[in-house]
């Protein structure tokens, strides 16, 4: 078991020496960019993995993740508004992203709710619709503000190439720190997530404050995803497939699944980034790679689990 973890961490580290189409001994200044990419990639992949796992547990639904639930797109929309109104380097950016994410998840909840229950298929449907809605809104805002379509692409499809100025460094570090703290919180509640994943009523009878936990997981999940998405744009499928892969190895216990999803999500995202940067023409968004792997997996899930 531990071997697998070592492998995952090693893949993350190995990538450290690989990115970019250049040789290994580069001048010191290029290292800055690589480290930055790596840190952002680890946080982004890790966050998406953990939140995906937590949401799947909370909703007892193997088909949800930050992207299919609309959270990532909502955050990207918030970020778009901030960037377009010229406040992309201030604290407005993460806040706008958070509000966008909350809005998205609120809408999904509203659409999918049926009596007191959140049925699997309705949830996935509502999530995909909301995701699409916010993607379109991003496009709309970009076109109305007469910017290039490339910017919309990056926001909706993801990229680790964040340009950081001295003033926005603090913002970036703060966001990533918040994201990691949020992940920690989710991992902290691993056992309660286990119980909720059985059945809401049973969870109540076992002493879990189900409504409160549900709300808080949604809130923390939205916050954490937003903290990452406002910098990298919305990256899909990591949150969906990574927890499943980890469950296949370790079983469904969240105390193992959540940390495992963090590491595997980080590793996979970094590897995808390395692939995109070295093997494809410039500017290919990360989501293309993650979708190429993720979509067949999603179909497999649909056929076996639903």
């Amino acid at each position: 078991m531990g071997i697998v973890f070592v492998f995952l961490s090693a893949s993350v580290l190995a990538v450290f020496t690989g990115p970019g189409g250049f040789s290994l001994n580069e001048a010191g200044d290029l290292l800055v960019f690589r480290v930055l990419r790596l840190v952002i990639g680890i946080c982004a992949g890790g966050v998406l993995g953990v939140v995906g796992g937590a949401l799947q547990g909370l909703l007892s639904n193997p088909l949800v993740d930050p992207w299919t639930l609309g959270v990532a797109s909502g955050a990207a929309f918030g970020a778009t508004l901030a960037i377009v109104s010229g406040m992309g380097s201030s604290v407005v950016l993460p806040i706008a992203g958070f509000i966008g994410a909350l809005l998205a998840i609120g809408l999904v909840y509203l659409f999918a709710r049926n009596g007191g229950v959140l049925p699997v298929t309705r949830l996935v449907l509502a999530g995909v619709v909301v995701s699409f809605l916010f993607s379109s809104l991003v496009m709309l805002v970009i076109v109305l503000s007469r910017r290039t379509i490339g910017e919309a692409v990056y926001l909706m499809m993801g990229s680790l190439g964040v340009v950081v100025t001295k003033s926005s460094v603090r913002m970036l570090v703060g966001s990533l720190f918040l994201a990691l703290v949020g992940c920690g919180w989710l991992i902290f509640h691993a056992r309660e997530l286990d119980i909720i994943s059985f059945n809401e009523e049973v969870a109540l009878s076992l002493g879990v404050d189900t409504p409160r936990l549900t709300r808080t997981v949604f809130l923390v999940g939205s916050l954490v995803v937003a903290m990452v998405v406002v910098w990298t744009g919305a990256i899909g499928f990591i949150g969906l497939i990574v927890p499943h892969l980890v469950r296949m190895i370790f079983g469904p216990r969240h105390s193992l699944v959540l940390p495992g999803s963090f590491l595997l999500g980080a590793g996979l995202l970094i590897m995808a980034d390395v692939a995109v940067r070295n093997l494809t023409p410039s500017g290919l968004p990360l989501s293309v790679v993650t979708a190429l792997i993720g979509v067949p997996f999603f179909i497999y899930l649909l056929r076996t689990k639903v």
Partner: protein
Amino acid sequence: MIDYRGVDSVKIGWLLMALVLVLGGCPNGSVKEEAVHRGARDVRCVSLVPSITEIIYALNAQALLLGTTNQCDYPAEAKMVYKVGDFQTPDLERIVALKPTVVFATVPMHARLIEKLKEMKIRVYISEPVDIASVFTEIESVGAILKREERTRHLVDSLRQWLSMLPVFADTPRVYIEISAIPLMSVGSGVFINDLIRQAGGVNIFEDVKQPYPIVESEAVVKRNPAVILILHPGASAQDVRERVGWQDVIAVQKGRVFDGLDEDLFSRPGPRVVEGIYLLARILHSR
């Protein structure tokens, strides 16, 4: 700088006639041409391309111009012309309602529209200049369509002459052109501004990239170490660029040769202001 706006064609006509009398020849009945076509309205045009709108005004043929796009904003009078929509999405109905005899469009932006116009048997002039030489050719073509040959020749000759007066430069600084900050986007091959830069005595660091508007990494920019940075978008100021983490070792940043607040139209519109653009670029690239 030559002011080719508002020059009375009548005056030119008389001048030429005087020249003719002096030189003892009557070349091509140009006086008659001008007289005939100043009053003739048989050419009715719609311009979907801002640079061509500029050309039309430079040739003093704006009387023939029925419609332009929202982005046709130079010269100032062009803003008052009836608008048929955005440059990106002009309205076919509005264009057709004006009953034009020729429509100026460009590819690939207007590809579909052009097909529709051709189906409706409306003449379309397709503009795709890629360098300075083709800009001059384009001015000539447009002038021919609008039957302003004299004026055209005058304009093109003076532009050519002005361009030839550009000095030879000692060095060829590498230039990084930024058209977006989030994400980082630059200019690749096949884009008009590359030729402008070359004429101004510089070279675009991403000229070798096949995509016209590639998304680039900070790493790539820093590695190619440009001597001059041009910010052609409102999303970042020169100060912002100087503060970018990891960019401190770029020559342009070290020597403070980062320029923002430039009029992008001067560099992106393949119209009569190109030479002005080149001179401006030359000043920026080679100043100390």
